[in-house]
């Protein structure tokens, strides 16, 4: 049961989902609406600025951060289906505006409204079972920012455990980074490749047919390697597993 009558969630969809995996965004909306949440999508949103921030372009990142703050100024809950974008907004916006007390104040207020998708379901809506069904075996990869910057560990696993018919298999060395790291993956491709190769090896050892995560950037990385090697493992965002209407 939702904790408030028809809570209002403003969706921050993330560039990767918006442009490359829109079906994930659709699933997010459906799952939230099925739980009685009113969802809106402030159309002025674009990139949260993380790729710029991680590459040292703090001034440029600040421009995009201002845009985000403006786009969501009327939001009650900002729901983000990505651990890394949510961490950027909740944690690193405060660093970005270290020297600007006015913006820092805004970033602070904004920060308290930002929820990663699984966190929103479990900790705000108090829901761990959305009534989803699936089949086969899946394994879960906890993305680094989700796990370490946001401290979100149990929530996705609780939601997955309650998916009827889905067998969850533990991923060996699951907490080891998949090697994406944004521009790291193309700045040091040999190292990134080594890391994703280890991740793929661990995934294949589970014999799961699906890899689930809360970050499409990780899934783009791991999925890109899996499909290049023509391995029969699907990659899915948590929202897609929970979406009763996703095939």
């Amino acid at each position, binding site marked *: 049961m939702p904790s408030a009558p028809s809570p209002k969630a403003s969706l921050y*969809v993330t*560039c990767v*989902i*918006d*442009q490359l995996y*829109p*079906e994930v*965004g*659709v699933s997010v909306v*459906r799952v939230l*609406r*099925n739980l009685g949440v009113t969802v809106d*999508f402030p*159309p*002025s949103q*674009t*990139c949260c600025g993380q*790729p*710029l921030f*991680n*590459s*040292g*372009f*703090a*001034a*440029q990142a600040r*421009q*995009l951060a201002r*845009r985000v703050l403006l786009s969501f100024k009327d939001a009650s809950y900002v729901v983000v289906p990505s651990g890394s974008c949510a961490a950027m907004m909740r944690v690193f916006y405060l660093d970005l505006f270290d020297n600007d007390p006015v913006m820092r104040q805004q970033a602070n207020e904004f920060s308290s409204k930002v929820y990663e998708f699984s966190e929103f379901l479990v900790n705000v809506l108090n829901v761990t079972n959305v009534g989803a069904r699936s089949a086969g075996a899946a394994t879960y990869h906890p993305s*680094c*920012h989700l796990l*370490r*910057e946001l401290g979100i560990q149990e929530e996705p696993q609780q939601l997955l455990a309650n998916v009827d018919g889905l067998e969850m298999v533990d991923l060996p060395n699951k*907490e*080891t*980074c998949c*090697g994406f*790291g*944004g521009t*790291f*993956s*193309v*700045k*040091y*491709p*040999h*190292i*990134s*490749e*080594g*890391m*994703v190769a*280890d991740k793929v090896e661990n995934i294949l050892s589970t014999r799961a047919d699906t890899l689930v995560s809360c970050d499409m950037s990780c899934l*783009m*990385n791991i*999925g*890109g*390697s899996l499909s*290049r090697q023509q391995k029969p493992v699907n990659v899915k965002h948590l929202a897609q597993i929970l979406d009763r*209407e996703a095939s």
Partner: protein
Amino acid sequence: MPQIKTQDFFNASALSIKDPELRQALQRVGTGFDNARREAIDEVSAEVWEQWREAARQIKEHTIDHLDYYLELLHDNVTKNGGQVHFARDAEQANAIVADLVKSKGVKIITKGKSMVSEELSLNHVLEGLGTEVYETDLGEYIIQLADETPSHLVAPALHKTKAQVAQLFTDKLGVPYTDDIEEMARVAREVLRGKFLAADMGISGANFLVAETGSLVIITNEGNGRLCTSAPRIHVGITGMEKVIPSLHDLAVFLRLLPRSATGQRLTSYMSMVSGPRREADEDGPEEFHLVIVDNGRSKMLADPKLRESLYCIRCGACLNICPVYQKVGGHAYGWVYPGPIGAIVTPSLVGLKQAKDLPFASSLCGACREVCPVKINIPRMLLHLRQELTENSDPAVNSTPAWESILARCYTAIMNHPTLLSMGIKLLKLLQMPLAQNGRIRRVPFAPLSRWTRSRDLPALPKHSFREIWRQELSSPNQSDQ
């Protein structure tokens, strides 16, 4: 100063990542040390471990915030104990201090315990240049001294070497019959070095901690070489970075609980030796002179920058190296200087120059595992980000390392993301451009950098027909229209 090869990181790491023997050695590090660390933590419980970490961090935070005060207190108490304190601004000065002692005291033979700071100074080469015999006595350091290499790990300097490589080294350099039996090799080292320990005029050690309250130097060791270096010769010289001081002997306890467990999973090392000056009149043995050389060598820069200051909390346990997936792939030498791994990435720029070490802060996926295992809770990822900003945004050309194309790309990206009409035009263009490359929703090859570096081993998703925001506008924006 040892040769700085930090600028070769990309090439060095590309080579080392393919080295099969190094891979095997690094696998031992990843599983061995880290598993042992976790076991040691489980034994005391996660709650207790967190309490210790927090206590240690607070001690370090306090001390570093008042570093000059505690260094003065340390100086006074070491002097009161009959020791002599020498402050060295840089490597040259530190080396000169030790060289002067060697010359004025007629030192011919030196035995040396492990000291990463002495690696910063290339001290051994300086002393050998004076005609002194210098023997590294920690087994790992002894091996790399024979091999004329630098350490590849903070705690296990020779971890990159297989036993066969060590066996060959011993045969070549010591003339002993070839054996790759590890116990036998340790026995050879014991035999060779025993005579040196007892003949040495001077023993040089590092320091894990310096206790300001009592003017003491603390080393934790396993082999016994540290004790021999600080007990047998007539002169003991301790060389250390200025950040090693802690206020009171009371504080030492929590660090002794954290450091061995974090480093190798040991509850405590075989030995903890605390030196409080030269021998007293009534002592049966021990050095007649104790000299403490406290080295700055760039640490003031970290101290002065509030965003880098916490890198001075480091107690050199190596846990961040052991957990780092990048270190586990490329090993220590690729980092190109004394300190490898995550801690190396944040201190090396201050010690050798930011621009020279420009690759190191970027050679990380920012996964944050290092921060999680650090016994003093250093926020390494935050400092990596800070250094990245420095390298990218500093207007001083001596520091700024961003290639022009990257700056242009970043500005274009920002402009596009700030103007959704530009964004949708850009996406339309990309959809056109991707047509020859996209097949079944995938792009297998992009013929130019940087994306070519991705597609050489990974597929990319092709841009779908409609973006999410288009679908939202068309179908989802009002719940009546959604497919519920």
